[in-house]
C-alpha cells in the first residue's frame, strides 16, 4: 500500500508540471480556437519561449545551488549592447569580414555573460553578500551602464546577415497547408537543456550542486568546495544569458537598451519554479524548467488570443508563480 502511494507521489512530483502543461494546452486550444492550435502559432510560441528559456536553464542551476539571480535581464541588455558595438567595430574596419564580425560579436556576448556571472559569483562567495542583494545591485548596474552607453537609445547592428541568422530555421516541413519549422533558438534551447540536464544528473559537479543547495554545511563537511560550486553556477548562468542575448539581438538585429531583456528575471525564475525545482535549493530538474517556460509562454499566448490587455498577462504571471510555490509547499 505505502509503496504504491509513494510511487504515485513521486510521479506527481516528477510529472506534475508536464500534466499541467497538457491541461493548459487543451484549455488554450479551446479558448484560442482555431488560431492557437495552428502550426505557425505553435512554432512561434516555441521560438518566443526559447530566449527566456535558455536563461531559465542556467537559473535552474543557480536556484538548485540555493541562490537566485535577479540581474539576468539587465545583464542580457548589457552584453548584447557591448556585443553589437564590437560587431559593428569589426565590420567598420577595412575589409571587415561579415562572418568574422558576427562570430566576434557573439563571442564577446557569451564571454561577457560569463564574466558578468563570475562578477556576481565572486561578490556572493568571496564578498559573502546574499545573492538577492548582490544581483539586485548588479541588475541596476548592468541596466544603467547600457542606458548610459546608448544614451537610453538603441544600438542597431550594421550586419544584415546577423539579422537573418536571428530569423533562421533549421528545417521546415509542411503539414497540410501549414508549415512547421524548427527555428535556431529552439534547437539551441533543446541542445543546452540536454547538456545541462546531463551535467546535473551524471557528473560530480551536478551532484555537488544539489548537495550545496540542500545543506551547505553538510557539503562543507563532506569536502565539497562550496564556494567554488556556487561560483560556477553563476558563471554558467552568465554564459546562458550571453547565448540568449546573442539570439535575441539577432532576432531584432538591434538592441534597445531600455527594453531589451526587461522582466526576463521574472520569467526565468517563474519557469524554474513551475518546473518543480525547489525554491529552497537542493533538487530540481532542467527539463522541468523547459516545461515551465512553455507553460508561461502558452498562458501568455492564450491571454493574447482571448483579447486581454497585455498588462493583464503580468498579473496572471504573478499569480501563477505564487500558486506554484504554494503547491510546492503543500506537497512537502
Amino acid at each position, binding site marked *: 500500500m505505502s509503496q504504491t502511494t509513494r510511487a504515485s507521489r513521486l510521479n506527481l512530483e516528477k510529472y506534475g508540471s508536464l500534466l499541467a502543461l497538457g491541461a493548459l494546452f487543451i484549455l488554450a486550444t479551446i479558448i484560442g480556437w482555431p488560431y492557437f492550435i495552428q502550426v505557425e502559432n505553435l512554432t512561434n510560441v516555441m521560438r518566443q519561449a526559447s530566449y527566456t528559456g535558455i536563461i531559465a536553464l542556467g537559473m535552474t542551476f543557480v536556484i538548485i545551488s540555493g541562490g537566485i539571480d535577479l540581474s539576468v535581464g539587465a545583464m542580457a541588455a548589457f552584453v548584447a549592447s557591448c556585443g553589437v558595438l564590437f560587431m559593428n567595430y569589426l565590420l567598420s574596419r577595412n575589409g571587415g569580414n561579415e562572418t568574422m564580425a558576427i562570430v566576434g560579436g557573439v563571442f564577446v556576448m557569451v564571454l561577457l555573460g560569463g564574466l558578468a556571472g563570475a562578477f556576481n559569483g565572486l561578490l556572493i562567495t568571496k564578498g559573502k553578500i546574499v545573492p538577492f542583494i548582490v544581483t539586485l545591485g548588479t541588475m541596476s548596474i548592468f541596466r544603467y551602464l547600457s542606458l548610459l552607453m546608448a544614451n537610453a537609445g538603441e544600438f542597431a547592428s550594421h550586419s544584415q546577415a546577423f539579422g537573418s541568422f536571428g530569423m533562421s530555421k533549421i528545417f521546415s516541413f509542411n503539414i497540410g497547408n501549414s508549415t512547421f519549422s524548427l527555428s535556431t533558438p529552439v534547437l539551441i534551447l533543446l541542445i543546452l537543456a540536454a547538456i545541462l540536464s546531463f551535467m546535473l544528473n551524471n*557528473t*560530480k559537479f551536478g*551532484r555537488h550542486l*544539489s548537495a550545496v543547495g540542500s545543506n551547505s*554545511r553538510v557539503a562543507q*563537511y*563532506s*569536502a565539497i568546495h562550496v564556494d567554488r560550486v556556487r561560483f560556477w553556477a553563476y558563471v554558467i548562468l552568465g554564459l546562458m544569458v550571453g547565448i540568449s542575448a546573442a539570439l535575441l539581438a539577432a532576432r531584432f538585429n538591434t538592441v534597445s537598451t531600455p527594453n531589451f531583456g526587461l522582466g526576463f528575471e521574472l520569467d526565468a525564475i517563474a519557469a524554474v519554479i513551475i518546473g518543480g525545482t525547489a525554491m529552497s535549493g*537542493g533538487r530540481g530538474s532542467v527539463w522541468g524548467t523547459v516545461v515551465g517556460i512553455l507553460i508561461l509562454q502558452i498562458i501568455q499566448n492564450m491571454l493574447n488570443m482571448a483579447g486581454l490587455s497585455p498588462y493583464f498577462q503580468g498579473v496572471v504571471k504573478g499569480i501563477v508563480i505564487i500558486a506554484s510555490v504554494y503547491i510546492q509547499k503543500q506537497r512537502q
Partner: protein
Amino acid sequence: MIKDKNDIILHMEGINKDFGGVPVLKDITLDVHRQEILGVIGENGAGKSTLMKILSGIYQPSSGLIYLNGEPVKIESAIKARQLGISLVPQEFNLIPDLPVYENIFLGAEILKKPGVLDKISMKEKTRELLSKLSVDIDPDARIDKISVADKQMVEICKALAFHADILILDEPTTMLTTFEIDILFKLVKALRDQGMTIIYISHKLKEIKKLCDRTIVLRDGVLVFESPTESVSVLEMAQRMVGRELESVFPPKTLPANEIVFEAKDVSVPGVLENLTFSLRKGEILGLAGLVGAGRTEVAETVLGLRKMTKGHFIVNGKQIRFNEPAEAIAAGISYLSEDRQGAGILTSFSVLKNVTLISLNNYCNSFVRLIDKELERKKVQEYVRSFRIKTESLDTLLENLSGGNQQKVSLVKSIDTNPKILIVDEPTRGVDVAAKHEIYHFIHELVKGGISCLFISSELEEIVGMCNRVVVMHEGRIAAILEESAINEEEIMIHATGAKEEVAS
C-alpha cells in the same frame, strides 16, 4: 481516601508516543505528588525529554490521558501548559541574546500599560523581585549575550516562575553549572518545594538525584521500569535500573594498539576555545575525548578539520607538520569526521542513501575529465555497505529523511569511511539512536580499528568512553585536564578531571 486523591497533583495514564512509527514512549502510567521533588532518570534516548515535552504542551501524546488535580486535561500548546500552571525549563536555553533580561522573562507575555504599549517599569520591577527571590545578582537591564551561562540558567528559571506555576519541570539544569552554582540551584529548588511547588527534575547525574529528590523514577527505552522513594535506593541500583544489563557485554573487547603514532596535536591553541593541546593517537587506537559541555571536545574536531583558526601549534600527520584550512584538506590527508550534528553537518536528509554514502568519496567513482559518475560502480559499492552494515532501507534511492535515527547514523558512518581514512574522528557516534543500533555502531568502530584505522572518540556518555577507549583525554575549559590510561579509565576519575575538581583541590 479524599486526602489521598488530593495528594496527587498530576496523573498520567497509558501515555504512548511515537515519531514516524518509531515508539519513543510506551504505556507510561505515573503519579506525581503535590509538593515533591520527583527525579526522572534514564540514558540518552530513554524518553525523558519527550515525556516532559508532552507535559509542557510541545508534543502531543499518540495515546493516553493526563489528569491535573483529578481533572482530565488536554495540553495542546505551551501556552495552555502555562495556563494550567506547568512550566518547563528546557535543557537548551530559549533566550534571545539581543534582548535584556527583563524582556526575555516576559517574552510573549509582556505587561502592558495600555494595548500595545509596554510597561517596562513594572516588568523591570517584577524581574528584580524574582531575581532577589532566587538570591542571584543579575541586572534586569543586562543583555542576555553579556551574562554568564549560570546566570542564563537562572534567567530561564525566573522565566518559568514569572507566572503562576504549580509544577516546575527542570530538564538537565546542571549541565552547564559549576559545583558552587549547583548548590545554589539545589537550595532554590528545595525552597520552592517548601513554598508549595511540585518539581520534576530530569537528570542523568545520579548523585544529584540522590541528593535532591524525594522520589525517583527510571525510564529505559521509553518504558517506566522503576519507581521508588529516593532514600531506599542506592546510586548503584539506579545505574543498574537505568542500563538494565551488564555493562561489559555491551562493548566489544578492547584491542591493543600498535606503537606507531599516526596523528599528533602539538600545542594547539584557538583563542577563547582551546589552549595548548598536545596529544597523540596511535595506529589502531581508540582515544577518548571526554569533558563537560563547553569543554571544547567538538572544537578539537573542528580545529583538526580547519573550521577554526589556530593561532599556535600544529598537527603531525604521517610525520608531516601540517595545519588544515578546510575539511577538504583534512580529508585528503586521510582524516574523516563523523559529526555530532547528524542532520546539520553529517547527512543530507533530502538525498538518497546512495548519494549520501558517496558524497565525500565521489571522486573514486568518477572517470574522465568531466568527472562523469560511474553509476553502476556506485550502486554496487553502496549495496555492499547496506548489507554489511545492516542498514534498514527500502532501497538505495530512499531519501534519508525516511530512515530511522540509527540507520541515518549508519549511513553517516559509512559516508565517513568510504574515503578509506586512516584517522576517524567520531563525535557522539550514538546520539539519538536506539539501543540495538548503538551496539552495532560500537562493533563497527571496533572492526574498523582492528582493520588498522585509528579513532578519536568524542562522547559525553561516559560509559561508552569507558567501554570503548584505550586511553582518554579529559578536557576542562579548553585545556587537557588529564590523559587517563588502563585502570584509571572509570567514570569517577573522568568526572573529577572534567569538572576541574582536581585543580580546585590543588589550589
